[in-house]
């Protein structure tokens, strides 16, 4: 009934898609993090034009489906090839990999920007006042007080976002990239056995998510020294 040889072949094939899924995830989380930091800074800067640019970016990329964004960047910009060639950007937009990475980064950046902004705003006012009372200059205050507290605050929500990026990379299969989902669809097309193949593909995403959850838990423990068990008191 359960075809072990087929499952084995499926797992081996899908394994070949893992590097691409990971590279899309890592690339877009890294680039999206930079975009998010810039947008969150824009929102919090108090400079009206920057605030509005950041608001517009977040509004557009949170307000439209990722699939539409991928299609717009890949097929949409593909129709402006002469212009892009004149600007020297075509070598970038010609490749489906870069188009997918850009779309994923822009999308996750918009969500992450709001996570970052909320985390910075959650830093207790008293902590900032205390820092200032100690005579800390603004950058030092940011590095010693705001950043560690905000990071800890942001981590659970940020973890959610990273996990959703892992799953969002599956949309890259719609522009010919053969990551886990792309390979799964190809396998189904050849074997017409949707159930086994998609169950395997789902298991791969579960495994990836499991690893990410573990890493996030480690980071959380590292950032929360106050929650660690007290070191055993040394005998006097």
């Amino acid at each position, binding site marked *: *009934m359960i075809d072990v040889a087929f499952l084995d072949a499926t797992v081996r094939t899908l394994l070949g898609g893992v590097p691409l899924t990971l590279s899309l995830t890592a690339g877009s989380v890294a680039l999206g993090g930079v975009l998010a930091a810039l947008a969150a800074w824009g929102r919090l800067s108090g400079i009206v034009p920057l605030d509005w640019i950041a608001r517009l970016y977040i509004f557009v990329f949170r307000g439209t489906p990722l699939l539409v964004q991928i299609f717009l960047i890949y*097929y949409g910009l593909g*129709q402006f*090839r002469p212009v892009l060639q004149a600007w020297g950007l075509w070598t970038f937009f010609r490749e*489906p990999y870069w188009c997918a990475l850009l779309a994923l980064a822009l999308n996750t950046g918009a969500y992450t920007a709001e996570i970052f902004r909320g985390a910075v705003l959650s830093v207790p006012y008293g902590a900032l006042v205390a820092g200032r009372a100690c005579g800390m200059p603004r950058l030092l205050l940011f590095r010693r007080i705001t950043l560690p507290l905000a990071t800890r605050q942001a981590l659970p929500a940020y973890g959610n976002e990273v996990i959703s990026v892992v799953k969002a990379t599956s949309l890259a299969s719609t522009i010919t990239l053969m990551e886990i989902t792309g390979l799964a669809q190809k396998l*189904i*097309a050849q074997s017409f056995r949707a159930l086994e193949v998609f169950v395997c593909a789902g298991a791969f995403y579960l495994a990836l998510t499991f690893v990410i959850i573990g890493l996030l838990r480690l980071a959380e423990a590292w950032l929360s020294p106050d929650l660690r068990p007290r070191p055993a008191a040394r005998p006097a």
Partner: protein
Amino acid sequence: MTIRSALALVLSLAIGTAGAARADDTVPETVRIATEGAYAPYNFTKPDGTLDGYEIELGREICARAKLKCEFVAQDWDGVVPGLNAKKFDAIMSGMTITDARLKVVDFTKPYSGDSSGFAVDRNGPLAKLPLGGQKFSLMDEAEAAKALDAIKPLLKGKTVGVQVSTIHAAFMDKYLKGTVEVREYKTTEQHDLDLAAGRIDAIFANDAPLRATAEKPEFADTVMLAGPRFRGGILGRGVAMGLRKGEAKLKAKLDEGIDAVIADGTLKKLSLKWFKADMTPQG
């Protein structure tokens, strides 16, 4: 119920190929026919959302002669066979060619069209000079086909070719040009047409009739052209037919009757001249 038998039940329900799920050999009151709606001129979706094309008109004629009530439903190509076996519809009419691989999972009616396949390329690119333009080769004649392939391989070396996923064309690339070209697989042929026009890929490989239809569209006319030899037979199949679930002999007999009738009275020829500007009546 043990976990294993529960899983077996789920598997058999979902796939419908296991022993537990038998095909019931009755003709449904309304025969639902699935078509992709994105493979002009075989089938396409009009701006108002309704389906039209050669197969839609022909399908209605076949059903009328077979005295069946039929309705067309749109279904993405990559889900068309799983959907049939999951009983979401009763037949497929979507430019689907009879091949041995597909015969393992579905049955086919008699063919209602024959079409050759080949490349379309960028008119201004190096592949426009692909030799043997328009000459037909049967893959059944291996020596002749090998000669044709050897003639085009040097120009194709290192180029990127787009095909639709799960098609005879993807199988052709795998069998004959693996290692020579880089293959990219698309969900629809409309998508590989756009990427050819955008210059992301150097060529596409598909059925000749849809390729001609693409090359004639105003937005593709100055970039896309057909080039090189045309292939048929062998891995490219034995004509376009309706796909049915395995073991539904009564429905197959009725539809075969309808197909015979539209061939005999010239309706098929008339419709193929209307949509393809060529007689696509299957030979033999």
